[in-house]
Structure formats: C-alpha cells, structure tokens
C-alpha cells in the first residue's frame, strides 16, 4: 500500500506542477500584471465633494499607481444625483446603480479612448444611498462575488458615519490586497483543483476495482425467496392509506438581490455586487 500511495502522491505532485506550469502564468513573480494594461485616464470622480480636498489628490495617485502596477483600471465614482438622469430612473435602484457604473466604465472619453478591458469600478449614489462594485472581465476572477461582498461589509460602518475618506481607503486597500494575493490564490486554486481531480480519480479507480473484485464473488447467502413465490398467488386483501400530518419547511434562496449580478456591455463582461448603505 505504501508504494501505491507513494505513486499517487507523485502523480498528484506532477499534476500540480504541470498545471501551475501550464496555467499559472498569472502567478509569475516577475510579472505582477493581472489585466491587459491600465490607462492614464482619471480614476477618482468626486462630483459633490464627498472626499476631503486634502485627500483627493492622494487617492487619485494611489488609484493610478495601483492600476499601473496590476494592469487594470481601478476606478471610484461618488455621485449625488443619478435618479435625476432619465435613463437610470427605473424602479430597481440597485439595478440602476449597476447600469450607471457599467455605462460610466464603458463611456468613451473626449479623445475617444476608454478604460482598460480589465478593471474594477466603485460607484456610490447619494440620492438613494446605493453602492455598487463591478469587476470587469478578468478582474471578475480576482475580485469575486465573495470579495466584493466582503469589501462592502467592511465599508458599512464608515458609510453609516458618512466617512467617505475611510470608505475609499478601504476600497483601495482591499482591492490592492486582492490583486497582490491573486498569484498565490491561483496557485492555491490549482493545488485544490488537482487534489479534487485526484480524489475523484481515486474514487473512479476504487469503483473500477470494486466492480472487478465483485466479478470474483459469486457466493452469497440468499435473504429472499422471490424466486419461489407461486405465480398469481399474491392477494392484496386490504390496502388503506391514512394521512397523518404535514410539515412544511422554507429555506430562503440565495438570490442576487443586493448581491451578485452579471452583465455584458460594450463587449465586456461585468460581475457586480450592489446594496443600499
């Protein structure tokens, strides 16, 4: 048995190594870029002075540096009056915020250029206190639904205190952490996948040998006498069914309300999380 487990371990290590070599390109130490490359366009939009003046330039600089380092545009928008725009004046406020964020990210600048195909946008609308984070294309794998929910959870206290500097600080810090940890996360994901592949393979192998071993067994005590029932002798004299009681259990479904959603727009795929704050 030692040999066989040794062989299985060796096979799993080879599988992990091959997978990392083939698919772990994103995790290369000398190449921290996650996206296809960042643009130089403005990253922070503070239309109604939610962010303190002394911090605004610093935040813009941090967002730009973060974008450049990881090759993905990291954008933040603080707005006040989205419902006043007729195209977003729809009953579902969270959906309206999502659409606004997506359009904002896709909208061409005056020179005709657009944000990078890979990026992330944070959108806050004061009018209905709705917030949305949209991951664009590859960044959807880096900042996942759970990550976005976690970021929003961490922001809640500061949102309630209207401390938007802190909110933006959390956004930048947590996105940076996620970008930075993406390489090791990819490796961990691949190791996990390989282990899962191996476990499923082992189960398949065990089923196979069990079937083959079953061919060697043809002797067993018989526990039934169904071969010896006289044909036509079965007579069902009485058959009554009584209803006793009923139980009903309700489990709330995992829904996208206030949570995950996905859209395609401008040739890009957006995956987002939204909620009221």
């Amino acid at each position, binding site marked *: 048995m030692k040999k066989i487990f040794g062989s299985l371990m060796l*096979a799993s290590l080879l599988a992990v190594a091959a997978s990392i070599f083939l698919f772990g390109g994103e995790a290369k130490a000398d190449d921290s870029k996650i996206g296809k490359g960042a643009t130089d366009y403005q990253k922070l939009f503070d239309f109604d002075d939610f962010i303190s003046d002394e911090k605004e330039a610093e935040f813009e600089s941090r967002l730009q540096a973060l974008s450049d380092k990881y090759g993905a545009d990291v954008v933040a928008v603080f707005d006040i009056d989205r419902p006043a725009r007729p195209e977003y004046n729809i009953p579902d406020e969270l959906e309206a915020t999502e659409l606004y964020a997506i359009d904002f990210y896709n909208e061409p600048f005056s020179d005709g250029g657009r944000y990078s195909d890979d990026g992330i946008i944070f959108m806050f609308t004061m009018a209905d206190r709705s917030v949305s984070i949209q991951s664009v294309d590859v960044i959807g794998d880096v900042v996942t639904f759970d990550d976005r929910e976690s970021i929003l959870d961490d922001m809640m206290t500061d949102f309630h205190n209207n401390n938007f500097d802190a909110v933006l600080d959390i956004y930048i810090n947590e996105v940076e952490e996620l970008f930075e940890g993406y390489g090791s996360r990819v490796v961990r994901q691949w190791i996990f996948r390989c282990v899962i592949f191996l476990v499923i*393979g082992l189960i398949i192998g065990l089923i196979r040998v069990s079937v083959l071993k079953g061919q060697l067994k043809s*002797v067993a005590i018989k526990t039934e*006498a169904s071969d010896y029932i006289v044909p036509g002798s079965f007579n069902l004299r009485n058959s009554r*069914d009584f209803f006793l009681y009923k139980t009903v259990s309700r489990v709330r479904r995992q829904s996208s309300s206030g949570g995950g959603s996905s859209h395609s727009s401008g040739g890009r795929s957006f995956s987002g999380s939204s909620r009221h704050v």
Partner: protein
Amino acid sequence: MALLEYKCPCCSGAIEYNSTVGKMKCPYCDTEFEMETLKEMDDAISEDTINDDLSWDTKAGLEWGDAEASGMVSYECKSCGAKITFDSTTTASSCPFCDNPIVMTAGFVGGLKPDFVIPFKLDKKAAKEAFNKHLTGKKLLPRVFKDQNHIDEIKGVYVPFWIFDSNADANMVFKGTKVRRYTSGQYDVTETSYYRVLRSGSMAFANIPVDGSEKMDDALMDSVEPFDVKDGVEFQSAYLAGYCADKYDVSPEDSIERANRRIRNSTEAAFRATASEYTTLSTEANNIKLSNGKTRYALLPLWILNTTWNGEKYVFAMNGQTGKFVGNLPCDKGLYKKFLFTGTLVGTAVVAAGWFLLHFIGLL
C-alpha cells in the same frame, strides 16, 4: 452397512447412472438399463440390510475413540478389495482405487427416505467446462491460478435439501412520506406529508430449498439455486450410483429458520411494492402467519470442485440440473493495486480534461 454395486449382466463391469441418457449404463460395453429393472434390486437390498461394523484394525495405528468411530463406516471394495473408510453420512461414492461406483444403503438407515431426487442432467465434463468458463474474463484473478488450475477433486454429489412450501398471510403497517418540493417567491419550500400505510393479504411460496448438510457451505448452496423440482423423480438408490450422496445431518426443524427468514423478507418486499408512490417507506409492524406448511426431503444434484491455492481451499459448485456455476475466486493483490493505480490515473486525467473542456467553452 449394505453396499450396493450394480454389475452389468452382460460383462460384469460396474454400471452407473448416465445423466445424458437418463438410464443406467455400463461404461465398458455401453449396455443401457431401465431404472425400473433395477428397482427390484433396490427392494431386495432393503430386505437385506446389515449392521454397521465399527470394529477397527488397531494393529497399525491407534484405537478410534468411541466418538470418532461412531461417525465412520468402513467398506471393503468388492471389485478390488481395498478397505475404505467413509464419513457415516456419506451414502454413495466410488472406490478411490478402482473407481467402482458404490451405494452404502446403511447410510440411510435411521434416517428418512428422500421424497424425491432430481437426477443429474450434466456430467463431469460439463462441470470442467463450466469451471474453465468461470475463470475467464476475471481481470483480478491471479494468472497462476488460471494457468495452473489443478482441480484437486470433482465430485458429483447428491446434497440433502429440505424443500419448504407454505402460504403466508400478512398484515403490514408502514409509515410513508410523500415529499413535494417547489419554490415560492424567495423561498425553496419542502412539503412532507406523512401517512400510515396498511396492507394485508396473502401469498404462497413453493419449493424453497434449504440444504440439510452441515458439511456444505450454506452460502454456496443458496448460490446454486434455483432448482426446478418439476424434474424431481421418485427416489431410487440406482440414481446414486457413480455419485456421492450425503445423508441429512441438519433436521428440518433446524433448517426452517432459514426458510422463514426468506419468506418474511420476500413477503415484506411484495407488500412494499404496492406502496411505490411513497418517497420513503419504513416498516412499523410486520406480522406474518404461515399456514399449510409442508416439508419434503429431496436429494439435489451438485458438482463440487475443490482446489487449493496459496494454502487456501477454494470450493466451487455447479448445479447438476441447470449448470449454474458458483464459487469465490482469489484476488491478485498486485493486479488489484495496478488496476487501482491505472484507474485513478485515467480517472484523474478524464476529470481534468473534462474540467478544462468545460472551462474553455465557458460552462465553468
């Protein structure tokens, strides 16, 4: 101990029952004899039963203890003069030196005469062929076992069986559930309805065989079923010529529990099948009353094959009527590991390839 050897009236050779033609046949001059002709011989022999002779020659060895000797009978072959000792429950066999078929009628003395016997339809050659077929296609069977399949012994044995017939009258109470799942708004709803399910009725069982031989493995005997008792004929000792036959050493009273267990399980299964609309069904009460129970004593034909491999004894059995062949085979640990390893590698590769495929076409 009365010993019965059928001598050919034509050539004086030892004649035996031929399962192919269904008659007694002399293997030397090929003369065939009707069973009825030999029945008169049976009758004559039954009037001429001799007592056991349990006095042993102790000059060459030790004395048998009383308990040991009571289980043995000794026989001097009238064909070659060899002295042979048998288990006292053996009623038919052949001389191991000259293969002269013999029937020891004293083996039946004190016991019951079988109600019927199912004669052999298949011969030793068919048993050998079935054994070879049994070994094919088994990937984990040690190759050495297959290549060197030296069968130590192939014996045609009439095994004593108790045949049980009974009517079963049953009252069953089950607790059943019906589960309905649906979605309502933001909720997944599971609605479980509970029912008390009452069923009563009757059914009949016929010809449930339970072997009455302590020596025979119960699982092996169960596995060679079924036998078609329609082929059963009135017992005549001539059928035993050329085969071994065991006298029962497990009483019908001791065997009935095995039949009852099978009847109980099958009765419950039959009534359960009438409530298939339930998602789950658990038995709360199961009362079965048997009536018109009848037991018969029968000798059923089996070919028993023995072989020893790696110090372990392997026993195979073939139903001498239907040809059903059973017997557990050894497993090659090396091949087991090899197949587990290759199965795991192939399984892992297939799962990984499937994942990549689904990933690249965008389904994952």
